[in-house]
């Protein structure tokens, strides 16, 4: 794991723009290994290309978010279930 690795807290901002809930507490189930983690615990890489969230257990890419002018692109094929709590 290198110095540019972040965690799911760093994805909270862009997720909050897309979803109307606090997303660092949402739980994602990895489509590859099946482990379930809160978004705040995921491994996150941010670059000019976008935000990539990986499973801390198996390193599978759970979600990719790219923001361009006027739109978001979400690639969610790596997350089997996203469990979002609507109340704290």
């Amino acid at each position, binding site marked *: *794991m*290198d*110095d*540019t*690795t*972040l*965690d*799911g*807290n*760093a994805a*909270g*901002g862009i997720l*909050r*723009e897309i979803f109307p809930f*606090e997303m*660092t*507490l949402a739980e994602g189930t990895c489509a590859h290994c099946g482990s379930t983690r*809160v*978004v*705040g*615990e995921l491994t996150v890489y*941010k670059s000019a290309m976008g935000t990539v969230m990986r499973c801390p257990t198996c390193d599978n890419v759970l979600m990719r978010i790219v923001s361009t002018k006027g739109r978001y692109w979400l690639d969610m094929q790596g997350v089997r279930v996203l469990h979002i709590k609507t109340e*704290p």
Partner: protein
Amino acid sequence: MASLILDVPGWTGHLAGQHVDVRLTADDGYQAERSYSIASPPEDGQQLILTIERLDDGEVSPYLTEELRVGDKLELRGPIGGYFVWEERLGGPLLLIAGGSGIVPLMAMIRHRRAVGSPIPARLLASFRTYEDIIYRDELEREAEAGMALEVIHTLTRTQPPGWTGYSRRIDAELLREVAWPVEQHPLAYICGPTPFVETAAAALLPLGYEPTRIKTERFGPTGGS
């Protein structure tokens, strides 16, 4: 390091440990955005304090720490984060472990704890390179001496001043064994700093019997502040 005090009209409140995203837009429309932890407690109302480390090659932090003037406006998004937060109902005792500027969200927890008069004991272990790098030194010293059940332990990893009585090395398993609350007390740990620092500290708590669910972590990008 610089602490910015921001008036945020309409701020609906935050929890200790949350952050905001600050977005800067250049005249040509180019945008840069960074996350900064909130250093002030929720009790400060519509005033937010962000403590920001200036990164020499940064796009945003040199502007915020050097160019920003009183009266300038900033675009904020937040508060963000529900994972790395502490409220009194979550209990303790608290073990707060900071690498460099990773101390900022932990400071919000310490200030919140003081503001609500919480009797929950707290222990802060903070790692910096040199004595001059220590952030919030005076405030923490005062509070530790005031009998607020706060213990402050520093380790200086690069150079130590003459007569230094604190630790003088990077945080490792042995250091944590000496400093961490016994697991029987059901401690709650918060670790914030650069990624390798957080990995090391979190891994070292597990053999002590800390429950993974009672260890909260927040990783920074490359600040090298430990």
